[in-house]
Every structure is written in C-alpha cells, then in structure tokens.
C-alpha cells in the first residue's frame, strides 16, 4: 500500500542499521524510551531490536491506552453494563482488560450484558439512534489521536438532540505522562530507569504537534524525535537520537514530517476543547495518580457525561499481586522478568493489562519476541 510498504523496505532498513552501527560510540550505552505502544509493536513485529547494536537498548513506555487503564475504570463500565442495564459500546482492545474478581467486559458479555464492540464513536452514536428506549454509554479510551473523534460524536449527539447517549471518558494525555516519568521517578515504588532520549509519538503528534515536547527537551535536557509507526521510521529516529546524544544536543526533532507539524491539527484541538476539559488527576496503571493527565466532559455537556448521569464514583483497585505491569510500564522491568509472563498470563488469558493489547510490551514480546530468548541448540 502506498506510503506504507516503502517504509518497511528491507534494504533501506539495512542501510539505516549500518548508519546506526557506524555512529554509535562503543565506549558508552544508549537507552531510549519509545513512549507509544505503536512503536513497541513495530519494534517487536519487525525485529528492530536485532538490527540495533548491543549498546542501544529500547525501553518500552506507557503509551498504550489499554495498558494504562486501571481496574477501577473497567469496574465502572461493568457496573453500567451489568447493574444499570445500559448498552455499553467500546473499542475491541478494551474487551479483555482484566477487572475486579476475574471479570472483564468480554466475560460480562458472556453473562448476558449488552456490550458491543465498535470501530468508531460514530458507530456508538448509530446504536443510540437505533435504540431510543435504551441508555447507550460509550466507554472512550485513548490518547490525543483518539480524542477528537469522541468530541465530534458528542457535538453531533448535541446537535441532533440525542437523549440516550453518554460518554464514560477515559481519554488520557501524552505530555502529562512523559512529564510524570521525567519529574517523579524517585517517588515511584518501582524504582527508576535512566533514559537518554525519547522516540516521540506518531499519530498523537499529528493532533497536538511537536511543540508540547519542547519543554522536555529544554528543561529536562532529553532529546525527543517524533517518529512514524513504520519500522524504518523507528530506526531513523533511533539514528537521530544517537546523533543528538553524541553531540550533546537535546532538541525536539521530527522524523515524521510527512504528517506532523509544529502546531498539529488546530481544528481537532479546538473541537476537543469545546467538549472536554482537563481533570485534576487520573489514575494510570503503573504510574499511579498523575496530575492533569486526563480529560473529562465539560459541564456544558453534562447530559452526555456518564459519570454525572449515572452518579458514578471512582474506586481504585489493586492489580494482581504478582503482575509486574506497573514496573514494565515504567520501563524498569522487562516482560520476561514477570513470573506470570507466558505461563498463566498469555494474550488469550491476560492477567495484566500489558498482555491485553497487541501494543502492550508483554503481548508484543509474547507474539513476536519470546522465541529469541530461547537458545538454538543443534539436534
């Protein structure tokens, strides 16, 4: 497909790998965090790790909205579906996220709850129009990429006077999470990891632009290179990060110029701001409460806010005791450091959220990387 296949070319990948090998300083090591799950998935799927020198390590960040969704938020959705008999619509990725007492949305669906997987917020709107006698709630998750479509759905619902549609808003903000990783690592029970630079978000940056990362480069002296989600994009961004580190620079650079500009999509930002506003704090799996890191429905659209409409409160619930998702989401541990990985916790039966989404570190490693850990022995 045009503008996809070219960015997966094997010969060009080799060329970039040669460039990286030529330019790394063998007397030091490099640790870069790819914030996004989309990059984590690309690195695992295309074997990017195998093309990097041994002293360049990629640390998987918390940029997978399914992975960072805490149990308490899924419990709210389960309550609506099971006890309040709403039609609950959500993205397919959310269906198997483990919730309290061994429940998940897909298990609730098996018990008869009316839970529907949708591709788009407009599908949820359509379900609301088709079921005027039922309450329809859209459990909306995602980073800035996914937020503007949600905001448009609310605006459209308001325009046509839809009375049975509301939003359980779990949209989260990328810059707040990166800031949290940089500013409060010592406060974490999981320990810290040293990061030399960030591979910056691809599609999030189409919406918010490259400007929001400038503070990280300036104040924290960390290079950021915004990169597309194809494997060559990731490799080129690693080369650009190596160059910044080698020359002592800490700047925001943009590898994904074909889709990202400094200001982002202003129209998408404005429409989102009409409907949604920043929450004081939001709990992230792995990061805990992060100030000003998520969005909620503005009071002008209170009728479309499921939390107000159904008088829902949030209760934090602890993760599975042996699950290492928290440390993995901070980059402190690897999937294989977890006792549950690949034994009781698999993509078919995830115990922790990093095993749920294909973008989660654990699921990506399970699907594409786990055989790399096994030594090849001649028969």
């Amino acid at each position, binding site marked *: 497909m045009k503008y996809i296949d070219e960015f997966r070319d094997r010969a060009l990948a080799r060329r970039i790998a040669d460039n990286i*090998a030529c330019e790394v300083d063998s007397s030091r090591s490099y640790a870069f965090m790819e914030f996004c799950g989309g990059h984590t998935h690309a690195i695992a799927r295309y074997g990017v790790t195998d093309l990097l020198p041994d002293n360049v390590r990629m640390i998987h960040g918390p940029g997978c909205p399914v992975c960072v969704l805490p149990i308490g938020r899924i419990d709210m959705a389960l309550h609506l579906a099971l006890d309040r008999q709403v039609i609950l619509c959500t993205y397919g990725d959310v269906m198997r996220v483990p919730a309290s007492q061994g429940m998940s949305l897909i298990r609730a669906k098996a018990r008869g709850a009316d839970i529907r997987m949708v591709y788009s917020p407009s599908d949820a709107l359509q379900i609301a129009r088709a079921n005027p006698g039922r309450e329809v709630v859209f459990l909306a998750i995602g980073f800035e990429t996914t937020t503007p479509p949600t905001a448009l759905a609310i605006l459209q619902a308001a325009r046509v006077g839809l009375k049975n549609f509301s939003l359980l808003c779990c949209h989260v903000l990328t810059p707040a999470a990166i800031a949290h990783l940089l500013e409060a690592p010592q406060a974490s029970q999981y320990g810290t990891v040293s990061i030399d630079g960030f591979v910056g978000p691809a*599609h999030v940056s189409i919406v918010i632009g490259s400007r929001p990362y400038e503070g990280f480069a300036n104040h924290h002296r960390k290079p950021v290179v915004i990169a597309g989600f194809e494997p060559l994009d990731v490799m080129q961004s690693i080369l650009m990060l190596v160059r910044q580190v080698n020359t002592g620079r800490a700047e925001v650079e943009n590898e994904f110029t074909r889709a990202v500009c400094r200001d982002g999509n202003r129209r998408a930002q404005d429409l989102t701001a009409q409907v949604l506003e920043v929450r004081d704090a939001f709990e992230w799996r792995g990061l805990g409460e992060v100030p000003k890191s998520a969005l909620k429905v503005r009071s002008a659209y209170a009728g479309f806010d499921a939390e107000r409409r159904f008088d829902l409160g949030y209760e934090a619930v602890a993760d599975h005791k042996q699950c290492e998702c928290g440390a993995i989401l901070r980059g402190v541990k690897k999937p294989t450091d977890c006792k549950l990985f690949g034994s009781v916790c698999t993509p078919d039966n995830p115990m922790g959220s990093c095993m749920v989404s294909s973008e989660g570190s654990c699921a990506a490693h399970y699907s594409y990387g786990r055989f790399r850990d096994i030594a090849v022995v001649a028969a």
Partner: protein
Amino acid sequence: MCLALPARVVALRGADSALIDLGGVRKEVSIALVPEVQVGDYVIVHVGYAIGTLDVEEAEATLALFAALPAGITS
C-alpha cells in the same frame, strides 16, 4: 490503539464525509477534522475519522533520507 493508516481520497461526499481507498478497500470516513482535503489527497485515517493529511513531498524526502550512506562512505 493509535493505529492509523494513510489512504487516498477518492470522492467527497458532502457533509464532512469522503470516500477513501486503502489498497483497494473503499470506505466512507469523516473529514470533519480536515475539511480542506481534496480528491487525490492522502489522509491519515483513525477510528473512521481522517485526523490529518499526508504531505507527499515530505514522504519522498524522508525516504531519500533513509537511503543516505553511512558517514564517511561514498559510493
């Protein structure tokens, strides 16, 4: 979750909507977030909405960058 793919706009359908083609698959998506797009443009599609446009010249420039030879080596 942030999965989005570049697709070519085949026809404008009025009321913030366009028909796109992605490797032969055609689908109607919302262009409410990028109302300026024209037939022939490439848009980045996510959950049924075009969230941005793809700059064809920048894409070619990036591909040329990938092909750069290692420092100090000339062909």
